[in-house]
């Protein structure tokens, strides 16, 4: 590999930011300013340097966070440092919405105009911003605003995420134009902490500590029963943990509902080492915010769950891949990982048991697709977040080609109760095939939006009533997120379990229950969903890359030009090829919600 770099130099600020993550360059070959005598004789730019490729995204993150964009000089410096071809690095940087390769102002406000916010103040906020600040994507006085996909704050709409160079990012919830302009002007607005409607309820299992136990204090966590599950896991041994997990029949909560024990056992039994664990915290499904609530409210529980998983499957290294637009959750998780490491709950000798386990936090950079497990692995490895073709599955060849378990936050946190109380006790909750409790994200036309924990099998009606929704005034419910489907009032008695949902031709997805009231504009939501998938398609495979564009165009024609039956047929045909021939779940589900809205007559009947 013969790399060619341009002459562009990094600014001192960029250099400092990169060196803080990658360390100072070891020689002038890797970007050091002074050429030593040794450098004229030897060059160490081979495999050992290239093996650090996975530090590419953290290096970009550092420059973006410090300076506000990635200049040619900064990119070249990072590429020298890691021996990455500049073109490849450019391909990676341009993949992510939060990284900018063109100069942009230091304060960028990402204003959610997605399905959860647009009917609840986002449209008004955007109109105000246009009036008082200026048009979208136009820098004014060191600041600008952009429309954004869902920011995972749907219970507190409208939401904004402020990407602030040189200082901590923040989130605005229930945002008005005053807050927004204040942040754009450089005011310091700390992110608002988490609250859940059921806070303090006795029946809570997963949410028990949220809002009750200090999420920044390891001792408070331990005083509340923290780390008893890990002790129990050590007593049980890896095989014992796997047995309990099998008895518990725990299914993944990320959307695919795959049995967790199957993944764990496959990796535990794999002869190849090292093995990896990944916690998928790239929660980006529109309408979803449950994992954020867990991260902000009970971070040590996530760390303990991951440690048990690592112990059971024989992984010593884990990655925690967190959505970039979650600044408070990132701070809490970083702090908790630091605390746990400092106190011997992570590291080379976890709790004196001789078991080594550590967690590295990686931030996503604005790409819904990176919630797809193999795209996430490519992202960690420093490549474009494009999904891989399966097989091979991650349990065989996952992160860095090694056997890997990847679970999302909610899935993993269930492990604590399974280990502590036994798999059978866990399986006694919920239904036969959907064990345990589940978190649902209630938003839209309900009085008390938020994350709710209920037994699997609870009906949609019960859940909406719990959140104070008027079940007699429902136009539709978006179940499972943008990748889910619209259901109508006649389906409210659907029990929320995998098997009942499957029988009804639905999925629970990531637990989104977005309620559309009598005034809601479902057609507008459908258009936004079409735009979302077009924006978030990675562009790798033709069915999804072009199909998401054609769906948006056909839906627009259908809604604007008198509901032509030809456009309706076209949407069905496009949805079929995306479902049949796309590489990953994004393409498979990109047309589902729109088709369901059409099927239910929510977008008007074809002529």
């Amino acid at each position: 590999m013969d790399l060619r770099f341009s002459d562009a130099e990094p600014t001192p600020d960029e250099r400092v930011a990169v060196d803080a993550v990658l360390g100072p360059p070891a020689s002038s070959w890797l970007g050091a300013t002074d050429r030593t005598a040794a450098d004229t004789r030897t060059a160490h730019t081979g495999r050992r340097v290239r093996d650090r490729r996975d530090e590419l995204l953290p290096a970009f993150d550092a420059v973006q966070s410090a300076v506000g964009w990635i200049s040619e000089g900064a990119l070249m410096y990072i590429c020298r440092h890691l021996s990455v071809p500049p073109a490849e690095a450019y391909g990676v940087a341009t993949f992510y919405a939060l990284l900018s390769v063109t100069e942009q102002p230091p304060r960028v406000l990402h204003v959610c105009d997605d399905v959860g916010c647009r009917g609840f103040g986002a449209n008004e906020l955007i109109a105000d911003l246009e009036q008082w600040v200026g048009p979208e994507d136009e820098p004014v006085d060191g600041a600008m605003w952009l429309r954004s996909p869902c920011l995972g704050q749907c219970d507190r709409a409208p939401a904004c995420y402020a990407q602030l160079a040189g200082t901590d990012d923040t989130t605005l919830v229930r945002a008005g134009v005053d807050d927004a302009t204040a942040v754009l002007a450089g005011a310091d607005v700390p992110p608002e902490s988490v609250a859940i409607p059921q806070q303090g309820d006795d029946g809570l299992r997963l949410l028990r500590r949220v809002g009750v136990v200090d999420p920044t204090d390891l001792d408070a966590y331990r005083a509340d029963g923290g780390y008893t599950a890990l002790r129990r896991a050590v007593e049980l041994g890896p095989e014992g943990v796997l047995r309990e997990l099998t008895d518990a029949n725990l299914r993944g909560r990320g959307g695919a509902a795959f049995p967790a024990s199957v993944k764990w056992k496959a990796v535990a039994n794999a002869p190849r080492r090292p093995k990896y664990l990944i916690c998928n915290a790239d929660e980006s499904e529109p309408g979803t915010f449950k994992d954020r609530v867990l991260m902000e409210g009970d971070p040590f529980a996530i760390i303990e769950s991951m440690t048990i998983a690592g112990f059971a499957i024989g992984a010593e290294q884990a990655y925690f891949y967190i959505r970039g637009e979650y600044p408070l959750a990132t701070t809490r998780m970083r702090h908790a990982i630091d605390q746990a490491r400092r106190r011997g709950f992570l590291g080379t000798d976890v709790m004196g048991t001789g078991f080594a386990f550590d967690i590295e936090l990686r931030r996503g950079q604005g790409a819904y697709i990176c919630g797809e497990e193999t795209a996430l692995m490519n992202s960690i490895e420093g490549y474009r977040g494009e999904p891989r073709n399966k097989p091979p599955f991650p349990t065989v060849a996952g992160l860095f080609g090694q056997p890997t378990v990847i679970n999302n936050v909610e899935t993993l946190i269930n492990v604590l109760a399974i280990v502590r109380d036994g798999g059978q006790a866990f399986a006694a909750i919920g239904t036969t095939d959907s064990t345990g409790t589940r978190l649902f994200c209630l938003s839209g036309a309900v009085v008390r939006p938020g994350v709710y924990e209920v037994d699997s099998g609870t009906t949609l009606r019960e859940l909406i009533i719990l959140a104070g929704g008027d079940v007699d005034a429902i136009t539709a419910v978006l179940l499972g997120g943008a990748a889910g489907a619209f259901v109508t009032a006649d389906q409210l008695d659907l029990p929320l379990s995998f098997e009942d949902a499957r029988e009804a031709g639905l999925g629970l997805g990531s637990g989104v229950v977005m309620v559309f009231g009598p005034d809601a504009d479902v057609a507008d939501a459908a258009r936004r969903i079409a735009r979302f998938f077009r924006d978030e398609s990675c562009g790798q495979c033709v069915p999804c890359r072009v199909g998401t564009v054609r769906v948006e165009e056909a839906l627009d024609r259908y809604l604007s030009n008198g509901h032509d039956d030809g456009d309706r047929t076209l949407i069905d045909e496009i949805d079929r090829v995306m479902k049949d021939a796309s590489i990953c779940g994004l393409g498979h589900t990109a047309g589902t919600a729109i088709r369901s809205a059409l099927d239910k007559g929510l977008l008007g009947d074809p002529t």
Partner: protein
Amino acid sequence: MSDTTLRTVTVQLDGTDIEVAEGTTLLDACRSQDIDTPTLCYSDVLHPVNACRVCVVEVEGSRPLVPACSRAAEDGMVVATDTERVRHSRKMVLEFLASSVDLSYAAEEVHGWMDRYQVDSGRYGPPAPPDGDRDERKAHAGHHGAVDGFTAETVAQPAKIDNALYMRDYSRCITCYKCVEACGEDAQNTFALTVAGRGFDAGVSTEYDFALGDSACVFCGNCISVCPTGAIMFRSEYELREAGLWDEDRQEVTRTVCSFCGVGCNLDLHVQDNRIVKVTSPQDHDVTRGHLCIKGRFGYDYVQQLPDPMTTPIDEVLAAARRST
């Protein structure tokens, strides 16, 4: 001791049981039975990226269709290559491409598949006009302009002509990743090309859209030889096509051995009007696998001292070529 016995697996292909060597792809299995399977991003000399999805087949037990180019045959697999689902997906993939990309220079077989699957690219609306900002849009992942309710978005954009040897017309690019692979780890190890941007705005690019001369490009032209749609082309071919003078019927292909070094790469010289207009190398040649270096690919001028096509009108270049016969 290594196991030297060749293991075989039996798959049922369109109702017929066939035995193939373990590791054989479904595409190769199809080929062994003379089942014509369309491919665009697949090449015998590159790792399959299975991005175009035009080769999909139906495998019993798999909910989505699977790409034949990269799925290995497994014992007992039941594969169908001409079901309604397969035909629908192939038709749609070809329609998506035909409605968004200029496929006029794609190989004849591609047009044959479009006929076979009854591709009607017009039903997505009239094509949107060319867009000069597509490179800029690569730098804005996650955002796109409003649809106009009328036209079908395309990748039409101005051609990039920034050097004397070859040009790039991404209006013809189906983003099959072949040039990126040939430039990178599958052949040249130069990594001058990447896919940048995301979604429909993703496309092949150098870093910051640098001109090729400022990029890592070493002008081996291996990207040209793998491009299935003429998006990357010899300048000589491009100029002749623009002048309406490109005529493959009048071309002769002469195989020779490159004279520049001792490796012995085979060259196929494409000659029109006694002038070399293009150089390729046979893909089945076990030295080159179709790949060449700048000398073999472009270093032919010394055999035909003709006026420089960069500075001389193409008619005069051709006239000079005719005079030299």
